[in-house]
C-alpha cells in the first residue's frame, strides 16, 4: 500500500545493483520514478527493460555524473524539468528521494573540483541533491529522503584535519568515512528540517549485498576481498534490500518513524559517531562550504 497520488521518486545510481532493483520495486508498487545514471546507454537499456515490465508506470532517466557540484545542480534542474514535462501538474512535487549512487576506489581519485571522489560521490552529491530538490519534496506528499549508508559507518570517524584524505588514503577508510557522513547528514537534516518542512530523512543499511560496487574501480587485494565477501553465504541479492528501501521511501506507515537509522525493515541504532550532534553540524557546515555556488574570477 502506498500513499495516495504519490509523485515520482528520484533515485540516483539507478542503472545497477540496489538502485536498479529499487527502481523496479517502486514501479511494481505503482510509483513513478526519475532515475539518475552516469552512463547514457545503460540508462537507456534499463529504461527499456523496466518500461516493458511496467508499461502502466512512467520511468524517466537523467544522465549525469554526480562527481562535481555543477553536475549535481544540472541533474537537479533536469529532474525539475522532467517533472514538469512528463507528469500531471496536480502532482507538482516529488514522492521521495533515494540517494543511492556510491562508489569505491582502490586508488585515491579526485573529481574535477579536486575533491576526493568517494567523499564527493557518496556524500556531497546526496547532500546537494537533497538541497536542490527540497522545495519539490516539500510540495510532494511530503516525500522522504533516504540515503543508502552501510554498516561500514561503524568504528570510524570523520578526518576533520584532512576530510579529503590527501594523506594515508585507503579505499576502506574513505568508504567508511563517506558512509558515516551519510548517517551524520541524515541526523542533521532531521534536526534542521523535519519539523518545519515535514520531509524526513533516513539512512538505510542494506546489509551485505551481492553487487559489484567494490569491483568497479578496485584492484588486487580489495577486489578479491570484495568479491569474496559479496559472494559469501551471508550476502543477499539486491532485490531484498531494494524491497525494504522502496517501502521505507513510499509506504505511508513505517514502524517507529522517529528512528532515522534503518536496517532493512527494522529501526536500527547508528554508531555512536553517527549520533554525535556536534560532528553532524560540523559536517553540515563543511558540506555547505564545499557545495557553495562558485563566483567566477578570470584574469
Amino acid at each position, binding site marked *: 500500500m502506498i500513499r495516495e497520488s504519490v509523485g515520482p521518486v528520484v533515485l540516483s545510481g539507478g542503472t545497477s545493483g540496489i538502485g536498479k532493483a529499487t527502481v523496479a520495486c517502486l514501479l511494481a508498487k505503482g510509483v513513478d520514478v526519475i532515475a539518475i545514471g552516469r552512463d547514457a546507454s545503460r540508462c537507456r537499456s534499463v529504461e527499456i527493460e523496466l518500461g516493458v515490465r511496467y508499461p502502466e508506470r512512467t520511468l524517466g532517466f537523467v544522465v549525469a555524473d554526480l562527481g562535481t557540484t555543477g553536475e549535481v545542480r544540472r541533474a537537479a534542474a533536469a529532474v525539475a524539468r522532467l517533472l514538469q514535462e512528463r507528469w500531471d501538474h496536480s502532482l507538482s512535487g516529488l514522492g521521495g528521494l533515494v540517494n543511492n549512487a556510491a562508489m569505491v576506489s582502490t*586508488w*585515491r*581519485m579526485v573529481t574535477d*573540483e579536486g575533491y576526493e571522489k568517494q567523499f564527493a560521490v557518496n556524500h556531497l552529491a546526496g547532500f546537494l541533491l537533497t538541497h536542490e530538490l527540497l522545495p519539490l519534496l516539500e510540495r510532494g506528499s511530503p516525500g522522504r529522503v533516504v540515503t543508502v549508508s552501510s554498516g561500514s559507518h561503524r568504528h570510524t570517524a570523520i578526518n576533520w584535519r584532512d576530510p*579529503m584524505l590527501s594523506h594515508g*588514503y585507503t579505499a576502506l577508510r574513505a568508504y567508511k568515512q563517506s558512509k558515516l557522513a551519510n548517517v551524520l547528514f541524515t541526523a542533521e537534516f532531521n534536526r534542521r528540517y523535519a519539523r518545519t518542512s515535514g520531509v524526513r530523512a533516513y539512512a538505510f543499511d542494506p546489509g551485505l549485498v551481492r553487487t559489484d560496487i567494490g569491483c568497479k574501480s578496485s*584492484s588486487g587485494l580489495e577486489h578479491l576481498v570484495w568479491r569474496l565477501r559479496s559472494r559469501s553465504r551471508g550476502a543477499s541479492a539486491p532485490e531484498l534490500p531494494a524491497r525494504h528501501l522502496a517501502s521505507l521511501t513510499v509506504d505511508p506507515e513505517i514502524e517507529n518513524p522517529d528512528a532515522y537509522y534503518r536496517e532493512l525493515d527494522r529501526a536500527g541504532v547508528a554508531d555512536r559517531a553517527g549520533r554525535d550532534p556536534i560532528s553532524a553540524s560540523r559536517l553540515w557546515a563543511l558540506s555547505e*562550504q564545499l557545495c557553495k555556488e*562558485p563566483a567566477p574570477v578570470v584574469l
Partner: protein
Amino acid sequence: MRRRALITGAAGGLGKALAWEFASRGWDLYLTDITKGSLEILASGVKRAHAVDVLWSTADLSSQEGRAGLIATICAAGLKFGALVNVAGYDLEGAFRGRDQDSLVSLMRVNMEAGLVLTHALTEMRDGWEPLRVVNIASLAAFFPMPYKATYAASKAFVLSSSLALREELRGQATVTVLCAAGMPTTPNCLEAIDAQGLMGRLTTRNTSDVSRATYNAAIRGRPVVIPGWINRVLLMVSRLVPKPLLASLLGRRWGTTGERERSVPMSVVQSSTQGSPASPAARRAG
C-alpha cells in the same frame, strides 16, 4: 605575507593534486591549462576548500605566442610569485614512425621549452628576496633511452638535466626541484594501465596526493630530485649497472609488442603530466 604559485597543466591529475597541496599550505594560486572548463571548476573547488585566492587563465604553452601571452597577462596584473610548478607536458601514444612530424615538435615545445621560458620569466617576477621555488616534472623515463617513447623520454631527460644544472646556476634566485615519478592513478585509463601490470603496477604506483606532498616538501627544503616509492629508487639503482645500449634494447623488447599493436590504432593525445615508468609498458598512459 601571502605567496603565490603559478601551476601549469593544472587541470591534469598531477596538476590538480599539486594545486591542492599548495593551497592546503596557504599559497595563493595562479592556474593555467589549455582548456577553460576544467580550470574554472578546479579553481572553484580549491577556493571553497581553502581560504586562498585562486586566479586562472588558459594558455597554449606549445606556441611562442601562447607563452608570451601568459607572461604578458601575469605582468599586466602585477603579480609576484614565490613558486613555479611546471606540470604541463604530455606523451603521444604510438611508435615514432606512427606520429606526424608536427606533433613530435609540439610535444618537445610543451615538455621542454615551456618550463624553461617560464623559469626565465618568473625568476624576474619573484616575490621579495626569497628564492623562487621551481618544481619541474620529469619522469622515471628521464633516466632511460626508451624505444617507442623516444621523444617523451628524451624530453624528460632534458628537464632532468637542465633542472639540475640551473639549480646551481640560479642559486640565491631560485631553487629547482625535479620530480621523477612512475605512473600515477589519475584517470580510469591510468587505472586500467596499472591493473594490467599486476603486482608490479601496484608496487610502483603512488597516490597522486602523496607524490604531491613529497614534491612540495622537497621544494620547500630545496631538495634536487624526488623519486617517490622505494621500489622505484631500487629499480633505478639496479638499472644504472646496465650499459645504456643494452638497456635500450631490453626496454625496446618490453615496449615493442605494445608499440606494434598501437601502430594499427589511431593516435591519441594523453593529457597533461604524463609519466612513464621504464618497468611498465602499460604505465605510458598513467600520470
